[in-house]
């Protein structure tokens, strides 16, 4: 590390031109849907009964767009992602219905061998924990090269050049030397970049980033988020960001889908979600997080526990935790996801949406 003097008079180390990616400006979204999920249903057979982990999920993402999927543990975020990748183990799991349209075709209908080249090709998954994603016994060249070899069918010198190029793309200094290192020889930040290099090596159209629940150091997390933004600006990929954390949504996403008990309860542009949330669950998730920017008074909290998916209430599964007063019979109605305002969707239930009456004309049970 070369130290540089940055005293006030000598040098101002401000950001270089062309590096606006780390400023988290809005991503360049192209008006072209790259992935569309329609009424996706995935069930698990367990000894307690059928778990509808993904219960009729529909969403789409455009090129260059970042869609956040947020919701508490067990709400079905990962199962939805794994269903899109067709990585649900059967048994106990089964994709029971729906369509996953990637670049114009339903990938639930293609053969397994075709799917193998789609996976890690047109669509790829990046894990946040770099140690989990890298194999300690192979060097970096082997691991990045393997990914490149599969999708680009290149070997030898060409493959090597592509590996070095991929490492440069994620700004790994001295890429030629680093490529010969093993994972343990790299710093945490560098390993993250290698995982990123693998993720983009196939020029994916869609990247799914599934963030595990473990808490990372803020600086490491920030570096990971920067890396994703940078990859996006370099490849124009759509990103589906799965997270628990509305802070990540605020920082990263253009649009958000909020999941509860296997279903989407609200979906809208990120600012709309923060400024005008309609569903009580969304309001509670946003409101129950302490703020760094100011001293917060007592936090509003969501009472109760997340529901067990094999034992879901019949109608509105959020009703038991809703702070609103409602009639028991309304809780038995299965709410529909409606477009309350342009591009703002909400699962409209009397029990969980305060403004129900405003939109009740849009549903049969209104």
């Amino acid at each position: 590390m070369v130290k540089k003097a940055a005293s006030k008079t000598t040098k101002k180390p401000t950001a270089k031109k062309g590096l606006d990616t780390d400023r988290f400006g809005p991503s360049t979204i192209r008006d072209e849907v790259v992935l569309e999920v329609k009424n996706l249903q995935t069930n698990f057979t367990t000894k307690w009964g059928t778990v509808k982990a993904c219960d009729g999920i529909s969403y789409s993402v455009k090129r260059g767009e970042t869609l956040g999927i947020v919701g508490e543990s067990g709400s079905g975020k990962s199962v939805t992602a794994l269903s899109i990748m067709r990585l649900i183990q059967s048994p106990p799991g089964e994709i029971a219905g729906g369509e996953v349209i990637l670049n114009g075709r339903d990938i639930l209908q293609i053969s397994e061998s075709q799917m193998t080249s789609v996976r890690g090709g047109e669509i790829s998954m990046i894990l946040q924990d770099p140690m989990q994603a890298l194999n300690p016994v192979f060097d970096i060249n082997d691991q990045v090269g393997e990914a490149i070899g599969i999708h680009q069918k290149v070997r030898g010198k060409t493959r090597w050049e592509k590996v070095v190029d991929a490492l440069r793309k994620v700004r790994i200094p001295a890429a030629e030397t680093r490529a010969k290192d093993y994972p343990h020889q790299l710093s945490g930040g560098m390993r993250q970049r290698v995982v990123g290099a693998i993720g983009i090596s196939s020029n994916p159209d869609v990247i799914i980033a599934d963030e595990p629940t473990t808490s990372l150091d803020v600086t490491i997390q920030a570096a990971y988020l920067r890396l994703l933004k940078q990859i996006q600006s370099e490849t124009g990929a759509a990103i589906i960001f799965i997270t628990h954390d509305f802070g990540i949504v605020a920082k990263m996403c253009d649009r958000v889908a909020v999941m509860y008990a296997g279903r989407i309860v609200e979906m809208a542009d990120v600012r709309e979600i923060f400024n005008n949330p309609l569903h009580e669950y969304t309001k509670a998730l946003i409101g129950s997080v302490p703020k760094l920017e100011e001293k917060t008074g007592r936090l509003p909290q969501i009472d109760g526990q997340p529901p067990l998916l094999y034992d879901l209430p019949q109608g509105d599964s959020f009703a038991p935790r809703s702070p609103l007063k409602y009639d028991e019979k309304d809780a038995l109605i299965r709410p529909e996801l409606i477009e309350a305002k342009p591009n703002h969707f909400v699962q409209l239930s009397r029990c969980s949406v305060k403004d129900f009456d405003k939109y009740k004309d849009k549903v049969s049970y209104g």
Partner: protein
Amino acid sequence: MTTKEKVDYSHIPPAVGCSNDGEPIIQVRNIRKWYQVNKALPFIGKIDWLKAVDDVSFDVTPGKTIGLVGESGCGKTTTAKMVLGLEEPTTDGEVPIGQIYFEGEDVKTLTNAGRKEMRRSVQAVFQDPWSSLNPRMRVSTIIAEPLEINTTMTKKERDTRAGDLLGEVGLNPYQGNLYPHEFSGGQRQRIGIARALALNPKLIVLDEPVSALDVSIRAQIMNLLVDLQEEHNLAYILIAHNLATVRYMCHKTAVMYLGVVQEYGDTEAIFAKPTHLYTNALISAALPSHPDIVRDEIVLPGEVVSPVNPPPGDVFMSRTPLEVRKNHIYTKERPPLVEIGKDHYVVETPWSTVTGHDLSEFHLSVDEAM
């Protein structure tokens, strides 16, 4: 309970940022935990020290929370373990001596009765509610275990107390008959808190008490802790990565880097005017609470360095984007905490604070940061 005569604090060594106000329960003075990482041969090799905690001082007072914050490996848990008596501060050989005082008495010279009293008074709740409870024990037994060991209560009395404690943490007394696996993560954390409360402690060490919990449950647990603190005048030491949690829960905050407290004082004073570059870097990297809040990041050069044989001077030296003048005294000697405002202290060197700089000077680009 025995009523204690007024505690005498006059003999407690002074430390920057610590007064004897508020009748501290625990006072930590210049403690160190140095782990020997090699076996040095006598007279030949030099010992390699991993300095997990190096010269830390603070006071813990009733009804107040002190937060220890900083990145993984900066020594937060090690500090807490020393307070809990799970680790001995290092004092052998070349290592300077530090002390921990419990209600004005050096813990090393406590009588057996004093030691017992301290063990009752200082409890802990850990991060992982999944592994910290014995899966084969009923919850009421788990909660009553400290009572069985430390009191002469009968089984019946213990069960009643366990039921009361369950109620106090928002669970139903009948749930005492269940086993840990029958509870969710948030409920298990409540059980851990009930157990910590069993002996009417004065201080509870909370090591990342909510970070393993679901977001929707965190507020429940934080609010419970705040309520219990008010009700019982409890002191907390809260260890957290998350600065927003610290701001919500803590009256005082110590920002640690590489085993050393870099900024210390009243939480609001620190957040109003974060002064150490490291504190500013942490804040700049924290997630925003609204999409319109865009923080320019301060990316410090390099990575967190190893705590093995850290430089003799300022441990932050290798991470600063500012010029480190050769032969400056603080390249050779540890810089002290300096008072810069009301109840606000920071390690001050020409390169470690933002004082006299415009924050935008530090908004480094990714390339430069690598």
